[in-house]
């Protein structure tokens, strides 16, 4: 099976300019050499703490940020150098859902206009046909066609998120980058939205790049999981394998921090020392060595590569042999 999207050694650096002449003094390495594939109909969960480059990675894949280096292969074609006209076709295939439903809808546009914009941009100029499509899209995300006339401030957070999903679905995409789609919602609403996304995936054969910082959410929705730390992927593979038997020390630490509802179960969270290093000056060698409880001298010098550990999983750690 061919992947919908394959990224190869993708990098996104933000230049730091300082001084009178805006001299280039360094880079914030938000995404620093990431490679993976997303197959049709699967969900890749991308997890990591704030500031590790998850959202930037998602936006770079959609060319909403210009990648510094690397390739994004959409249906086997590198879209990194594509111009606007060429990208327009790609945009029908890949869409995005945002974290904050408050700011992802234009406050001056009705829900119907927001959804309809997607159709209008892609050439559905007939008013009647468009109105019908908007109604169907609203129904497919659990809202009523009448809601099209309302403005964003008249909806609840969960409803707004549903409108955002309908807008993404309007162009019939094959991949949706969901950037923390539930982290701004109430817990009860989170489950509804997650189930909606999974239903849509089943009905339409959608693939998701599901970005989150909540491991339980990732466990619920994803088929495969990637763990990101400071712009790099440290572990990627089958969800169950990674969550049951984490290999990378960082994944272990992340998992041990998930609260457990059973009070009889004794938990020993692995407490990481120190802060996440700045992505402007990432440590040499393994990026995690400054906080790793099991770091060896080798970790400080040599950067570990992402090596397949089993058929379903790769890990970037010197300790895994």
């Amino acid at each position, binding site marked *: 099976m061919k992947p919908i999207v394959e990224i190869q050694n993708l990098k996104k650096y933000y230049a730091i300019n300082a001084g009178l002449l805006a001299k280039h003094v360094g880079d914030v390495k938000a995404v620093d050499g990431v490679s993976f594939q997303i197959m049709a109909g699967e969900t890749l969960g991308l997890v990591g703490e704030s500031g590790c480059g998850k959202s930037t990675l998602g*936006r770079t894949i*959609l060319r*909403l940020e210009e990648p510094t280096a690397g390739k994004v292969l959409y249906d086997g074609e590198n879209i990194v150098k594509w111009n606007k006209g060429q*990208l*327009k076709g790609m*945009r*029908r295939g*890949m*869409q*995005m859902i*945002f*974290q*904050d439903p408050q*700011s*992802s*809808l*234009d*406050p*001056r*546009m009705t829900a119907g206009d*927001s959804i309809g*914009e*997607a159709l*209008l*941009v*892609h050439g559905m*100029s*007939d*008013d009647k*046909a468009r109105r019908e499509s908007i109604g169907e899209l609203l129904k497919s995300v659990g809202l009523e066609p009448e809601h099209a006339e309302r403005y964003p401030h008249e909806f609840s957070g969960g409803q707004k998120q549903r409108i*955002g999903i309908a*807008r993404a679905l309007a*162009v019939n995409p094959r991949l949706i980058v969901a950037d923390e789609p539930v982290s701004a919602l109430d817990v009860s609403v989170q489950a509804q939205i997650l189930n909606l996304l999974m239903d849509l995936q089943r009905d339409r054969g959608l693939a998701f790049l599901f970005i989150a910082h909540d491991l339980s959410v990732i466990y619920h929705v994803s088929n495969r999981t990637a763990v990101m730390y400071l712009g790099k992927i440290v572990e990627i593979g089958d969800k169950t394998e990674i969550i049951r038997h984490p290999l990378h020390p960082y994944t272990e630490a992340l998992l041990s921090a998930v609260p457990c509802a059973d009070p009889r179960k004794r938990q020993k969270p692995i407490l990481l020392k120190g802060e996440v290093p700045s992505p402007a000056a990432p440590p040499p060698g393994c990026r995690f060595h400054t906080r790793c409880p099991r770091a060896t001298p080798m970790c400080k010098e040599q950067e570990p590569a992402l090596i397949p550990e089993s058929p379903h999983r790769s890990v970037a750690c010197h300790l895994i042999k």
Partner: protein
Amino acid sequence: MTKPGFFKRAVAGMGGLRNVLALAMFLVICATIPLDILYWNRAIKPLDYSYLFFAVFMLFYGVYPLYVNRRLTRYYWDRIKRHRLAVPGMIFILFLIAVAIIGPFFTGDAVQTNFKEQNFPPLGFTYQQGIYDVKSDNFTTVVSPGVPQHPLGTDDKGRDMLAMLISGARVSLQVGFLATLIAVMIGSFLGVSSAYFGGWVDSVLMRFTDIMMTFPFFLLLILIIFLYGPSLMFIILVIGATGWTGTARLVRSDALSLRTRDFIIASRSLGASDSRIIFRHMMPNVLSQIIVIATLSIPGNMLAESGLSFIGLGDPNVISWGAILNAGFRGINTTWWVAVEPGVILFLTVLAFNFLGDGLRDAFDPRSQS
């Protein structure tokens, strides 16, 4: 799916029926221009035409949205009402607009001089003037009271003050609205583009704005008017073309925070064009800010025109408040009303616009909830 007809596609391409209707009205007005010249044998008056354009523009893009969105209108009205001086300000402005439009039909000719009725004071005042009588070689003192035919008195050429003030109101409002419209359109377009495109576009546009800002505006105005002659239309154009800098700055700062909002990114990820994002998403979201800036800069532009007229650089063919002030200023010790009346009205108008602007700002800005 049936292919939609050409008309429908054209309407959709222009962004709805409203734009089409507005454009049609504009074209109709344009079509009357040759009629005006050839058939009615009148010289075209660019000012009147631009004022007509402005009225049509406001009808379609100002009044119509307020009417469609009645709920929102009521909400804003409730908030404006909380600002105690905004409502009187608005009433005064509406009154002034009404007077400027229909007033000239009721008062006499403002330009008509009548030397038999020189220097009549306003109603309720009296004025003593010494008149030299050639026959008896004597000064006789004549006490002239205010007369009901000239409730606000007359000036030293016997022109009716009320008629002149009403004619001046029309000039001031034309200057205020048109110059502000030009300035705000230039400013908001440059501001939004600058914020949206960022990078070198932003640098170039903002440095240009800085350069425009450092020019002493009034001096520039005087120079240009002195060089190219004082016609009111030209004065309006110059005020508009130089007065956009503040708007550009303020709109840019608002648009900058808008640019990184998710709904703009969502539009980009849908493949929407830059112009679509600028005009459909950025502009409507900075519109309230633009309206406030516009309302607050109207009095400044009126004052600029009055200032020009006051120093004698105004259009000599129109009677503006500044010109009356200039004429009356010389007789301020004796025929005080000629200078005081336009001064007071100018003062009140500026205040009214400022109060209304403050009220609008409070109504539109959710952050200033008290």
